[in-house]
């Protein structure tokens, strides 16, 4: 089945003929006999006992995500940050190290700096386009490699097959944040990726309504051979599901970061139109990028769909000619950036991406304000840079709004 058919194909049994799974808003679940409850606790019978551990609506979403990714299993969590956190806790412990891209979303960078590094896990930051540095940074203590499929906001695109080959030569998995591309634009499994993490909040969720995330094991990595001791031990009991079971039982259940049922339902709604929206985001973003590139008051435009983007050729192959909805522009000075942002009438000045509406933000003074200048530059953030999340408005209307705002400079 092709992607869009999988997206609208129902999951799980239907009680009344409904086509969408119901929102099962219950904290816990009753069983007829103590033997039944014991069987569920022991794992001899499928069921749910408590919605911090699992929930029918959340399970429906997890099945759907696994179908979309064509993976082994998924766990839905409270946010994209919770997904990255869960992978770190599952695979690394004090004394271990991980190799991480310098081209990161600011929140992810702060998670590594403020939460993961203080746990005694060493984080080696490398340019994701520099394969030699990635290879050289991996040591016996390295537990996984982490990159973003499209760096946010640097908009560089690592060659995932090449990086997967490097990681696998060291017998460690590659984890990729696919937030900007989703399984619609990127067949991560076919590109050798082992683990996908995503902020479903962005493109999976409909209309900027829902915060959520997920981890998916794509089935490319043998967890019996992992160097991560906790997962390796669990793989002896749970076989292929060792990593997912560790994420679900040892991390998400204990931390309490499982997604709630209503947000799971909203993400299920969003999945049905994901491909349609991403096609439109991609088309409009390319038109806007081309307009900005030709405008005399714009110093630099960056979009993976433009041939001037350093990763364009890799992006074209990995995303099948679509490049999602994020672009950046530089206007020479911070003052110019602020004047432009204030002059827009249609596009909104706010954080978040993937919304139906076009959203702009000045990253240096918001998302990256806690990073040093050197760290900002490594992530592609400069004082005159504006990040644009292109929405679903008519492209001509958007271009006219940008044009009148540029005329104010």
């Amino acid at each position, binding site marked *: 089945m092709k992607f869009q058919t999988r997206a609208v194909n129902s999951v799980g049994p239907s009680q009344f003929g409904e086509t969408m799974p119901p929102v099962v808003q219950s904290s816990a*679940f009753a069983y007829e006999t103590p033997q039944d*409850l014991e069987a*569920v*606790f*022991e*794992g*001899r*019978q*499928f*069921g*749910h*006992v*408590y919605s911090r*551990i*699992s*929930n029918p609506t959340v399970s429906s979403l997890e*099945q759907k995500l*696994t179908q979309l990714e064509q993976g*082994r*299993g998924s766990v839905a969590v409270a946010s994209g940050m919770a997904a990255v956190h869960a992978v770190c806790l599952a695979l690394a412990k004090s004394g271990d190290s991980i190799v991480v891209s310098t081209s990161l979303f600011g929140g992810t960078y702060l998670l590594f700096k403020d939460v993961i590094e203080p746990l005694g896990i060493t984080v080696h930051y490398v340019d994701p386009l520099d394969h030699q540095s990635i290879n050289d940074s991996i040591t016996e203590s390295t537990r996984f490699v982490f990159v973003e499929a499209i760096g946010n906001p640097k908009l560089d695109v690592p060659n995932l097959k090449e990086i997967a080959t490097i990681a696998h030569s060291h017998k460690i998995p590659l984890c990729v944040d696919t937030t900007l591309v989703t399984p619609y634009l990127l067949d991560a499994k076919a590109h050798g990726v082992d683990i996908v993490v995503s902020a479903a909040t962005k493109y999976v969720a409909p209309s900027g309504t829902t915060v959520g995330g997920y981890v998916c094991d794509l089935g490319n990595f043998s967890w019996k051979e992992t160097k991560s001791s906790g997962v390796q031990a669990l793989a*002896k*009991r*749970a*076989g*292929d*599901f060792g990593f*997912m*079971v560790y994420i*679900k*039982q040892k991390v998400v259940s204990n931390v309490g970061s499982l997604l709630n049922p209503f947000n799971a339902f909203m993400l299920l709604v969003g999945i049905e139109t994901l491909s349609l929206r991403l096609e439109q985001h991609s088309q409009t973003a390319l038109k806007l990028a081309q307009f900005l590139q030709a405008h005399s008051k714009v110093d630099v435009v960056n979009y993976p769909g433009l041939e001037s983007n350093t990763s364009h050729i890799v992006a074209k192959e990995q995303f099948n000619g679509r490049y999602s909805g994020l672009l950046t522009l530089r206007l020479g000075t911070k003052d110019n950036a602020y004047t432009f942002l204030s002059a827009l009438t249609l596009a909104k000045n706010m954080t978040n991406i993937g919304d139906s509406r076009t959203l702009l933000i000045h990253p240096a003074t918001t998302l990256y304000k806690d990073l040093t200048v050197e760290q900002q530059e490594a992530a592609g953030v400069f004082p005159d840079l504006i990040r644009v999340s292109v929405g679903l408005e008519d492209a001509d209307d958007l271009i006219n709004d940008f044009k009148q705002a540029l005329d104010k400079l």
Partner: protein
Amino acid sequence: MKLKINGKESELTESSVSVIKLLEIQKVDMPDMVTVELNGDILDREQFESTTVKDGDELEFLYFMGGGAQ
């Protein structure tokens, strides 16, 4: 053939079946999420089709990804 599944005796008319067929015959809930232990050994999912169960085998169908298993 006679099998022991999750501690209970079970009799099948077939003389041998693959694990994937057995999951279907037994109408196992959520077959995509079940882990199968055959005579004490965990099977990889890739082995479900090629592994055949025979008379006297002991199997456990386990839901580590479900709501309660610890």
